[in-house]
């Protein structure tokens, strides 16, 4: 009945959705931001710890969301750790592109490995109402890096 949905809900997604990585509060974070998707009531909180060089030393999240937004946030935390703010913004841009169109031809070669790991989320581009679930964490990341407190994917 739902076989063609295995494209959207690939095993990686279901796995990260069920057992999100870095799913906790950071003590004493340097930056936090909240993201809201009023459409489905999803809400996440993202915590960043910045290194002396301004890079992302640690990152974690909490909140409640669907499999897709949870998996996306979970993958995010794995990928942006160790990146500079500029690198993280670039990856967020690339991911938004991927989620909306299914590919990111404009993405730099430097992002290739990360984009590869995000590939399982590319299926959302066929589900307009779910794109926002996938991008929520990334909007929130941008907001946290820019120092704004709240964001909404609507």
């Amino acid at each position: 009945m739902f076989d063609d949905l295995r494209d959207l809900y690939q095993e990686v997604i279901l796995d990260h959705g069920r057992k999100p990585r870095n799913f906790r509060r950071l003590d004493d974070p340097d930056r936090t931001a909240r993201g809201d998707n009023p459409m489905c009531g999803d809400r996440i909180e993202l915590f960043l710890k910045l290194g002396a060089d301004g890079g992302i030393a640690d990152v974690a999240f909490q909140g409640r969301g669907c499999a897709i937004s949870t998996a996306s946030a979970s993958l995010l935390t794995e990928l942006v750790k160790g990146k500079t703010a500029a690198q993280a913004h670039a990856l967020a841009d690339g991911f938004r592109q991927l989620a909306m169109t299914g590919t990111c031809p404009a993405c730099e070669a430097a992002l290739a490995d990360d984009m590869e790991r995000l590939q399982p989320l590319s299926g959302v581009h066929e589900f307009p109402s779910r794109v926002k679930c996938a991008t929520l964490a990334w909007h929130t990341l941008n907001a946290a890096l820019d120092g704004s407190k709240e964001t909404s994917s609507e």
Partner: protein
Amino acid sequence: MSLDLSRIRADFPILSQQIRGKDLVFLDSGASAQKPRVVIDAMIRCMEQRYANVHRGAYWLSEAATEDYEAARGAVAGFLNASDPREVIFTKNSTEAINLVAHSWGRGVLRPGQAVLISELEHHANIIPWQMLRDAHGIELRVARATDAGELDIEDVAAKLADGKAGLVAITHMSNVLGTVTPAERLVAMAHAAGARILFDGSQAAVHRRVDMQALGADFYAFTGHKLYGPTGIGVLWARLEHQERMPPFLGGGDMISSVTFERSEWAPPPAKFEAGTPAIVEAVGLHAAIDYVSALGMAAIETHERDLVDHAMRRLTDIEGLSLLGRAQDRGGVFAFTLDNAHAHDLATLLDRAGIAVRAGRHCAEPLHTRFGVEGGTVRASFGLYTTQGEIDFLAEALVKAREFFA
């Protein structure tokens, strides 16, 4: 008299569509209902044969359009068993109808310090306007509790009316999440005994039951065209003439005045006073056709059909492991909100969509109600229309079982 479902389904062009190769199983009528051909045809005929701006046109087409527009008002009055068509004010939807009362009657008649009593069952459309009135005009907002079964807690209503400070009770006639039908006659008696006026948000109820303004005795009643198988862009506020007389206008503009100078204007008599600007002419004509359609089927027959659907859905849904229904009111209509173990509402809706089933996921514009029932994320909601079949409910139930496996 029972409904001939296959004939009815043939009346709705959209229902015979295939979506991604699957038959459409439309279970989101509570958000907005599909339109029968007669409604579409009435709108076409209006635009192709009898269209012009209404009122003040001394030529045939304008007279024809005015006649049709006013006939629609008459049809709404008949549908509600109102005693006078002037009690019917056309708005753009329920939301505007309730805002109109909050704004005009609320600021014009309610006094700061008085209270408005709503309930935990309300749709945002019957919450936010009163919050805005509270903040602008200094009234107190009280909220009557819902019981765990999802019924209105009548004792709490009584307690919150006891001090006589409530000037208005504004309550849903049927919850768009739980399906609960509230005891309207009793609420009218309680409100009036406490010296308060009463408004019903009939957005859901008017679609599923016969409502009778003369029998009910309420003060205001709001509903919306697009849920009643009519077009978007039109809603109704039924309001007693005595209230309309006392209310200052809401929107200012053409057709709602009888004389204008720059110093002051005089308002037109009700209901024109509340219908500023060019009204939704084509939509009024479409709503008229929708009312004729449901009236020809018979609201009693529709109610019976929906009662059967509710019983059937109750049996099928409560059978499903891991499914939790929100609310189990005795008196209820065809709206079911639920959660399923392991599956977030949004993921579930996406899965069902792939099977051709249209349901809504989220909080259905009733966030406080979800909070009340401890649902943090959202629920999936299946809501029925007069064209819904038991077979569709069976298909939903099967799909839910499979969906649970998918996410297990």
